[in-house]
């Protein structure tokens, strides 16, 4: 009885391992390359985007060499400014918005993290409170030589809510991934 049980288990394991190996080999040989890639949504200015933690409406974007919203842009740098209206959808005040937008310009690492300024009065890194809409400017420092291509693609990112994380068992927002693209005209002007 146990002998027949053991041989049956062994047969199951062999069949399972064979299937996994076959799928892996097919994957390596590119059998799934023909599957259509999921389409990334494209957002436009003025469109409300819901990204998990935020409800955000991009308003305008521009490049300027003037001091803008008191953002600490050094001399010899330009500022790429993306103005948005955003509302915190979570239950607590937060500043977790630095990776919400990423611009697709091929410039150095120093300009990857934006300064985030409140436009109401220029406070840097303002905490945004639940259910209170605020107008906020994301300001990236660009080298002076950077030229404005007229349109800059931004990727819009989102995070996933986990009620219990694996390390401390606390709720939080994790696993950032791209939600879509924002294509917005960028004017070369002082705001």
């Amino acid at each position, binding site marked *: 009885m146990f002998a027949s049980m053991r041989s049956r288990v062994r047969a199951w394991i062999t069949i399972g391992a064979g299937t996994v190996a076959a799928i892996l080999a097919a994957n390596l040989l590119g059998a799934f390359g023909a599957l259509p890639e999921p389409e990334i949504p494209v957002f436009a200015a003025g469109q409300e985007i819901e990204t998990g933690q935020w409800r955000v409406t991009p308003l305008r974007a521009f490049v300027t060499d003037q001091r803008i919203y008191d953002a600490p842009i050094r001399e010899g740098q330009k500022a790429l400014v993306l103005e948005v209206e955003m509302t915190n959808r979570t239950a*607590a005040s937060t500043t977790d918005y630095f990776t919400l937008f990423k611009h697709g310009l091929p410039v150095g690492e120093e300009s990857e993290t934006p300064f985030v300024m409140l436009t*109401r*009065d220029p406070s840097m890194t303002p*905490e945004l409170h639940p*259910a*209170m*809409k605020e107008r906020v400017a994301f300001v990236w420092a660009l080298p002076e030589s950077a030229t404005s291509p007229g349109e800059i693609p931004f990727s819009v990112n989102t995070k996933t809510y986990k009620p219990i994380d694996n390390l401390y*068992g*606390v*709720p939080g927002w994790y696993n950032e991934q791209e939600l879509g693209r924002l294509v917005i005209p960028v004017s070369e002007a002082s705001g």
Partner: protein
Amino acid sequence: MIGHRLANLAILGLAAAICYGMQTSKPHYADLTGPIPVRGGMGDDVKARLFQLRVDKVEFAKILAVSEFGKDRTLTTGGIWAIVTVELAATNSTTTVSEATWQGPTGLGYRETERLAMVSGLPPFTVEPGLPARGRFVFEVPPSEISGATLLVSNERAFALDSQARITLDGLRLKPDGTPEMVADIYDMDEPIQ
């Protein structure tokens, strides 16, 4: 033989069910080490582990006027400003009280504002035993989050196994729709705390 096997399977199933039950009913780490609430109302002396706190009054304003580095500024908000005046005392050693949250009736948490950089009488407050001090906590809140709110005060933002004062803001003068009766046009942060 069959009966023996069925009994074994039943025991195995029971063990799995008990293990699953224990896993799902286990309190989470965050709950085990979370704040230990000390409750009270407005005007009560609420005794936390390291400090004692009394909420004297709550005022509301549309605009805050401050002078920072000798420059006058006014601060507007999308909601209204709530200014909570408190009296603080240390229990038995010098302590710093720095964290306050305005918790609305549905549980939304509004941290004290960080937009006022260089204004005196704002947290963090360092208090000595036997020398009570007065201070203000300033919040930006939507008008709908005022009625039924609770003030949460602790020494620090992140802490484990320590107390948190939770003061029910029950003495607010509100209109029937839950918004405050008195909202000042301008609140001058440079006025001495009374």
